[in-house]
């Protein structure tokens, strides 16, 4: 199996399944096949090398390739998509509009794999658009009025982000030598570009919006809260990491850019603490997880920012590893929310204990993948105040995750003997195993470090004491938590309502103006005025 064939199969199989859904007979049978679609991508992630696949002619060509960060993320994303696919198949049994869910699912899957593999700017933009449209469709499948609102906000923000991104990409395309559209060449051309700061700002704003960077993160709690469980799992896991990977690929890490990287790191860290602060006021487990995602993505952006500031070339690998671990754990925890909501007291502890291990892993529990992830990004963050803030962030994350476990426990089913469907439990437990094992395998396989390094007692202790402090704070939260203010989900978005009223008022006024302009005398006069003005403009230019 050559690399080209593997890459074609990785994107082609979900795309073919998506197009096959046009036939309604195939669409009926598709729910049972959802878990099979990501398998070629899994194989490609394991077996393919970094030879690019080029589709097109000399004038214009789409290019796909797999670099190391891409391979890592594609591997764990494929695992998540397969497990979530099993969960979705079980959930869709007997559902009435399974066809729509399947179409959106396959669209999101195609876009996700495509963005991980895209090596040229136009293909990347196209697949990102497919990803956004598919994901907003998935949110819409929640079926409630909140789902409609969340889906509209998600799509609106995605399009705004893509507008920024388009401007940034066009500027990149213009400074890349030889008119190459490859992302690799474009990233190398940024440091010497005459519009360097503007390009970087546009890229970061666009991709940051899609990755949940504060203050443009408010779509996350709305979307994850309203979407069905498997959709929320893949969205918080894989879809968001697509934007993070894009950020990693577009930014130039060879040259140190402190005046850009340090503010970026600061914004990321603000997001990390903001996510914790709002998350502890939420009571729905899905929302707590959503704010945890906001926090973790902020942390990831902080890592990227520090890497950019110091010009650390190990940043892509370290940041991807951190993202990969978060992908596995967050996806698994969302599946756990669904499982535990239908699990009664009798089967609760076997389901809850793995969730506890994974949740604390995000905070850096020793011997979990989370500790490895924190260890991997430590050199990038460097010493000094950033390292201190990172430790505080770990404490905050532990606090938030313990709060999550508390709410998860409270959401368990009231019927003591109820148990979740087998398919759900199967997907949850397999994700748990993957989230435990895969980080260790990746840590050594990609050469970030060795197991013996990670198992030294000093490192184990350094990871443990933030957990203990966080646990102490969690006890305090449990005791005095009722005094915390109630923050509505989507926090900032409620500020949008007065703005919307003003906007609607302006639109009404504009409509009235347009009605006046359509009166014959006004239109006739405009015609004459325009000819005078146009003539004057032509005279003026000479």
């Amino acid at each position: 199996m050559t690399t080209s064939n593997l890459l074609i199969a990785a994107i082609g199989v979900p795309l073919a399944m998506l197009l096959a859904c046009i036939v309604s007979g195939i669409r009926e049978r598709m729910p049972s096949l959802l878990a099979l679609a990501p398998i070629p991508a899994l194989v490609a992630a394991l077996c393919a090398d970094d030879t690019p696949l080029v589709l097109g002619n000399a004038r214009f060509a789409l290019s796909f390739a797999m670099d190391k960060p891409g391979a890592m993320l594609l591997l764990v994303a494929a695992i998540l998509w397969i497990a979530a696919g099993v969960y979705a198949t079980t959930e869709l049994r007997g559902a009435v509009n399974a066809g729509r869910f399947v179409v959106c699912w396959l669209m999101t899957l195609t876009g996700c794999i495509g963005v991980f593999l895209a090596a040229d700017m136009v293909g990347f933009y196209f697949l990102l658009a497919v990803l956004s449209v598919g994901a907003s469709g998935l949110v819409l499948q929640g079926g409630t009025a909140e789902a409609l609102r969340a889906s509209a906000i998600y799509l609106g923000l995605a399009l705004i982000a893509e507008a920024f991104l388009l401007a940034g990409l066009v500027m990149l395309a213009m400074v890349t030598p030889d008119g190459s559209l490859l992302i690799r060449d474009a990233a190398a051309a940024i440091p010497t570009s005459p519009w360097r700061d503007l390009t970087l700002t546009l890229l970061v704003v666009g991709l940051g919006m899609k990755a949940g960077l504060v203050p443009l993160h408010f779509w996350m709690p709305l979307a994850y809260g309203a979407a069905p469980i498997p959709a929320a799992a893949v969205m918080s896991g894989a879809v968001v990491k697509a934007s993070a990977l894009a950020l990693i690929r577009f930014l130039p890490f060879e040259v140190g850019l402190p005046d850009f990287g340090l503010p970026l790191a600061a914004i990321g860290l603000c997001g990390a603490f903001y996510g914790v602060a709002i998350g502890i006021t939420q009571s729905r487990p899905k929302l707590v997880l959503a704010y945890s995602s906001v926090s973790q993505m902020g942390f990831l952006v902080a890592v990227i920012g520090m890497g950019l500031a110091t010009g650390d070339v190990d940043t892509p690998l370290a940041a991807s590893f951190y993202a990969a671990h978060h992908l596995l754990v967050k996806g698994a925890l969302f599946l756990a929310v669904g499982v535990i909501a239908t699990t009664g007291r009798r089967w609760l502890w076997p389901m809850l204990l793995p969730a506890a291990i994974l949740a604390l892993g995000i905070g850096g529990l020793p011997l979990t993948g989370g500790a490895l992830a924190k260890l991997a990004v430590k050199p990038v963050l460097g010493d000094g105040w950033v390292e201190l803030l990172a430790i505080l962030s770990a404490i905050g994350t532990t606090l938030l995750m313990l709060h999550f476990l508390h709410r998860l426990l409270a959401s368990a089913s009231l019927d003591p003997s109820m148990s979740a469907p087998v398919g759900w439990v199967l997907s949850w437990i397999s994700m748990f195993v993957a989230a435990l094992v895969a980080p260790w395998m990746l840590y050594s396989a990609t050469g970030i470090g060795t197991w013996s390094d990670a198992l030294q007692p000093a490192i184990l202790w350094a990871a443990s004491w933030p957990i203990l402090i966080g646990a102490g704070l969690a006890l305090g939260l449990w005791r005095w938590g009722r005094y915390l203010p109630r923050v509505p989900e989507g926090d900032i978005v409620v500020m949008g309502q007065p703005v919307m009223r003003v906007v609607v008022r302006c639109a009404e006024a504009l409509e009235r103006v347009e009605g006046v302009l359509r009166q014959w005398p006004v239109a006739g006069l405009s015609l004459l005025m325009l000819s005078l003005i146009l003539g004057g403009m032509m005279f003026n230019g000479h």
Partner: protein
Amino acid sequence: MNAPTLFGLCAAALVGVGLYGLIVNPQPLRKILAFNLIGCGVFLLFGAIARRGAAVGMGGDPVPQALLITGIVVAFSATALAVALVLRLFDETGSVTLASDAPAKAQADPPDA
């Protein structure tokens, strides 16, 4: 002031009067008449140009005259189409106006002319 210049100024006056009528008058039939006035002005201008650009020994440049005749035909067809619409509108609604909130049917008023 020679003849072409005089006719040119006359053409300008016609165009001006026609523009005024087209913009200000609400009744469609008057707009049609105003359009014809503007058309007349343009054709007159064309004629003046034909006279002014005439080669030695010729009465006038033939090309504008040919174009002018075509233009008159086109303006005539335009007027015919417009008048047909006006007549049909009167048949349907009993009054002719471009305003959209005109009453629909059966007022026995003559068309505003």
